[in-house]
């Protein structure tokens, strides 16, 4: 789950810069994602990690449109650059 936890964390933190605490409350609605309320620590629960990331991206995209998806891609770019294309969630493919 290593890179996927980091991807989720990076996406939420980047969204937080734009929309503030709403980024965390929206992330909490995503199934398969566990967010520690105290430290805002993000971990992916079981299941398909790529699908969980896609749901997270979609959660923002549904509310804020295409621009928010681009922000997610940029936020994860540093991590996805080290992954094989097959391992990258579809919503983050460029």
């Amino acid at each position, binding site marked *: 789950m290593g890179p996927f936890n980091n991807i989720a964390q990076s996406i939420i933190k980047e969204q937080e*810069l*734009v*929309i503030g605490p709403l980024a965390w409350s929206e992330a909490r609605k995503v199934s398969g994602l566990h967010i520690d309320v105290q430290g805002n620590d993000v971990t992916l629960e079981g299941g398909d990690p790529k699908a969980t990331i896609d749901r997270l991206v979609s959660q923002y995209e*549904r*509310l*804020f*449109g*295409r*621009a*928010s998806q681009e*922000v997610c891609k940029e936020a994860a770019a540093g991590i996805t650059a080290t992954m094989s294309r097959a391992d990258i969630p579809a919503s983050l493919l460029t």
Partner: protein
Amino acid sequence: MDANTPQQAKSTSDYEAELKKANEIVYKHSLELARLKQELEVVNKQQENLLHFISHEIKGYLTKSEAGFAAIAEGDYGSIPEQLKTMSKAALADVRKGVATVMDILQASNLKKGTVSFKKLAFDFRSVVQTIIAEQQVAAHAKGLQLDVKMADGKYRLEGDEEKIREHVIRNLIDNAIRYTPTGTVHIELSDGDGKIHFSVKDSGVGITPEDMANLFTEGGHGKDSIKINVHSTGYGLFIAKQVVEASGGKIWAESKGAGHGARFIVEFLA
């Protein structure tokens, strides 16, 4: 549209679509602001580093000049003509002012960076105030000002950074009062009570307007007209004083009834 044509009621999905559009617009603006904020932070950081670098370099050159003029003025190179001696002393005084200015800017920059360390050692606050008053008598006398000092009996033991409190707080406040008071008296009071040390400097000088009061303790925040009286003001003195006082667990504030009504600066430390 014909005015008689009945308007169709919007469905929930129409409202949702409008809401999403509005959300997207707000999001794009927020994104733009977030990016500008990031850029601004980078530029601020670069500017701060540049300011620090320049100040540090200039300080180096000024310090060398200071040593040179001091050596000439003090006769290290043997006997010199009286005219040269006078010139060297004047140059030395100017260079020292330059060093003090650069040190203020550097100190403010370091305080902002959080790279200033503060000692926490016990010292006698009253004795430090007395020393500064004795030193400032010359400047006050030269301007024809009186220093009226009232010190109540008490224990003035304070834990903190003696040198920083002496130079940036006590000396700075008394020096400012002398500078900004054309005639009259500067009142200096020291008392203790309720577990606190109260130190105040009151002048009958140019006073502080409400607009200037808002910026008084901010970086570079000298008053609109204060520059006319003290052309060498960097605007960092009170900013540094506030940082030093607060780092020592104290409070500093100013009171003034406005322009032309003088000002009172009050410092409170927990004893």
